[in-house]
């Protein structure tokens, strides 16, 4: 017998392959964990429709559970309600910042606002808000790229979604 709580603990060890400081739990993509005897049923939701990390994440979850002795695992994908960066845990956001990625600003909308307008994204290194958007699309689908006008460093911003 395994409890749902134990599974949540194990999932804390499965990291996002693109942002290895964040666990899949921090990301907020694990929607449900259900256990029945040794059977485990997980429901996860993708971040972006085309996020190539999702397949790897599925595999990593399976491998981690096998490593812990759980072989009977079903992973379902659920699209609705759509994932939002608001589901990212506070701990996750702190870890992102420490890693050098500006965390998503809570409650901020995805890009529907005025053209050429920029969010005041604080630099994760020096906390300056004198930052400038370089590109709305960066190293992965979920990030945009900024530059800090004070410390001169470029940084990724985990964009709101």
């Amino acid at each position, binding site marked *: 017998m395994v409890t749902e709580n134990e599974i949540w603990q194990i999932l804390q060890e499965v990291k996002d392959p693109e942002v290895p400081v964040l666990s899949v739990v921090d990301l907020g993509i694990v929607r449900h964990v259900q256990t029945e005897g040794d059977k485990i049923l997980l429901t996860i939701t993708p971040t972006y429709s085309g996020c190539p990390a999702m397949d790897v994440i599925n595999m990593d979850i399976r491998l981690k559970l096998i490593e812990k002795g759980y072989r009977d695992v079903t992973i379902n*994908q659920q699209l609705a309600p759509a994932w939002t960066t608001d589901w990212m845990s506070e701990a996750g956001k702190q870890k992102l910042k420490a890693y050098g990625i500006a965390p998503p600003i809570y409650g901020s909308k995805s890009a529907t606002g005025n053209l050429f307008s920029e969010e005041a994204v604080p630099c994760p290194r020096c906390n300056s808000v004198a930052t400038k958007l370089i590109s709305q699309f960066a190293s992965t689908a979920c990030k945009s790229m900024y530059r800090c006008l004070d410390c001169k460093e470029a940084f990724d911003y985990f964009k709101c979604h």
Partner: protein
Amino acid sequence: MTQPADTDLSHALTPEAWAFLLHLADNALILGQRNAEWCGHGPALEQDIAITNISLDLIGQARNFYQYAAGAYNAMSILNKTAVDHLLPRLWKGYDRQLEEDDLAFLREERQYLNLLISELPKGDWAQTVLRQFFFSAFQYQQYNDLLQAEDEQLAGIAAKSLKEVAYHLRWSSEWVIRLGDGTAESHARIDNALKELWPFTGEFFTPASYELRDTSTYSTAWSDRVTAVFEEATLPTPEGAALGARLQKGGKEGIHTEYLGILLSEMQYLQRTYPNAVW
């Protein structure tokens, strides 16, 4: 493999609803494939990454629609299966297994693709690519917004997911249209040329196909408002022949394509046709 959990097959799809799914998927797949041609060729590293990120989003959306369509087909009554038979890949029929997303994406014939013509046109120069993306994203934004109200919860769920991505595509492409239109003489001339090339293809957005569940002509006003606002900022003329009648290039939604689609498909389908059932 993960299975979509919220694929509710209790209400079987009608043949029209199924064709509509393919249409939505094909739009996203074909433009995604087209944009991917920029990979490694973008005008600047950041923009190369931006256009290929958009490509990835579109292909992801296409996968969601194809997965849904494949599962729905497998659960259909014999009668409905017969009614959509003309849209199924001939090669798959010889495989003797259930229909999968890749069969729909990679094995159909040109005439079985139901994408908008504008999605298959060549990538052209950067101006043509960004203007096409702008027209397309402005349309997709209206369409997915409308699909949020669809009775089919799976369809509404895919639309909700995709809409957040499209909002970024629309903003990015709007900014590029303005940047080129209101830029140098060279950039203005290029986007003006792209406009002449693409405008005749924009009428197809608002001409509903027989299988379309929603009346796309109702998106026309909001689309035009967006185009007019961006064009004013971009110092571009409002195109002549704004009336739908002057934008006659259509047929893609019914499988009648330009000569460009076949070439795109032969490259995209090469692997699955040469090595049937190959997996990554």
